[in-house]
């Protein structure tokens, strides 16, 4: 019966939001394929619990390597037979004033956040076209919607992701493939671990709901967009930010 279970491919599933998504998808009864640059304790535990890859498949992939993305998608199809859902979660943050940001940091941010997403989506869309079914959720950011000092390059990549979402939704809709993005606000994760408590308090004061999000509140929005409950939603960006951009 496992072949009837939905298959979700989640990029960057070893930590943070990706890890929470892997756990939630497994709890929901999905089969999950994910990759990261290396295996941490969480990944090793998942592999130990499912050594035959019945519900969990992981491999080392560098999101900037197109051939390695292609191999991972092919291996996922070989392992699980299909890909119902793609969550483009990989993202790197680059902080700093643009005029003094290194070329290497700019390239790395664009390559990982944008090119990696495009190439992974290209490979998965080939599979979804054959199936005539699929749901893609791209992880955008509130920085794609509102300008913030010090995150110009990151914002540019996330705005581009929203553009990709809308155009792909139009392109793939007739094949029953939905494409949406979510724009999380600040939530407790590695990405805000560098902020001081004072900075976090300031963000909370500016947020109508007066706090940062719990990571599960972001995961719940993504699970909704993936689910049949969202079967008539495509080309949209769901903002989950406690109202900070309203």
């Amino acid at each position, binding site marked *: 019966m496992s072949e009837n279970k939905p298959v979700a491919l989640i990029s960057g599933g070893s930590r943070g939001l990706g890890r929470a998504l892997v756990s939630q998808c497994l709890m929901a009864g999905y089969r999950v394929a994910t990759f990261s640059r290396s295996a941490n304790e969480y990944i090793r535990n998942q592999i130990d619990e499912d050594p035959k890859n019945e519900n969990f498949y992981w491999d080392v992939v560098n999101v900037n390597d197109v051939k390695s993305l292609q191999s991972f998608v092919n291996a996922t199809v070989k392992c699980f037979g299909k890909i119902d859902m793609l969550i483009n979660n990989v993202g790197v943050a680059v902080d700093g004033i643009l005029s003094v940001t290194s070329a290497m940091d700019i390239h790395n941010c664009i390559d990982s956040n944008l090119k990696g997403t495009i190439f992974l989506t290209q490979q998965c869309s080939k599979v979804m*076209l054959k199936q*005539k079914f699929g749901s893609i959720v791209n992880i955008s950011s509130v920085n794609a919607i509102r300008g913030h000092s010090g995150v110009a390059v990151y914002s540019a990549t996330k705005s581009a992701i929203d553009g990709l979402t809308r155009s792909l939704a139009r392109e793939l809709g007739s094949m029953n493939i939905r494409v949406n993005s979510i724009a999380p606000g600040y939530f407790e994760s590695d990405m805000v671990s560098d902020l001081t408590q004072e900075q976090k308090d300031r963000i909370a004061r500016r947020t109508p709901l007066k706090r940062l999000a719990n990571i599960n509140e972001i995961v719940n929005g993504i699970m909704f967009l993936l689910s049949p409950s969202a079967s008539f939603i495509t080309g949209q960006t769901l903002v989950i930010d406690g109202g900070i951009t309203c």
Partner: protein
Amino acid sequence: MLNNHTLQSYEIESCIHGEITNFLVESKANVRSISNEIKLNSELGMSSLELARLVSVLDDKLEVDPFIELVPITSVRTIGDLVNAYKKAFYTN
């Protein structure tokens, strides 16, 4: 998926014609016979997305992808163009 080490030119053509036939059955198009001169869009009514789907299916079956580097997809207008693209990819590899 076919064993592409033993594929002959006519087998590539036959595979592509077979998938075109599947498309015609699915789309209920009124075409009596398949020939390489037939135009994919204007005669078969194949959209660019449907062509992309057909290419995904053929890439799996023939285990080559001519459109990554060798052939621009925009140059494919007829069934024959598609056949030639796969023959080129197959015999270049």
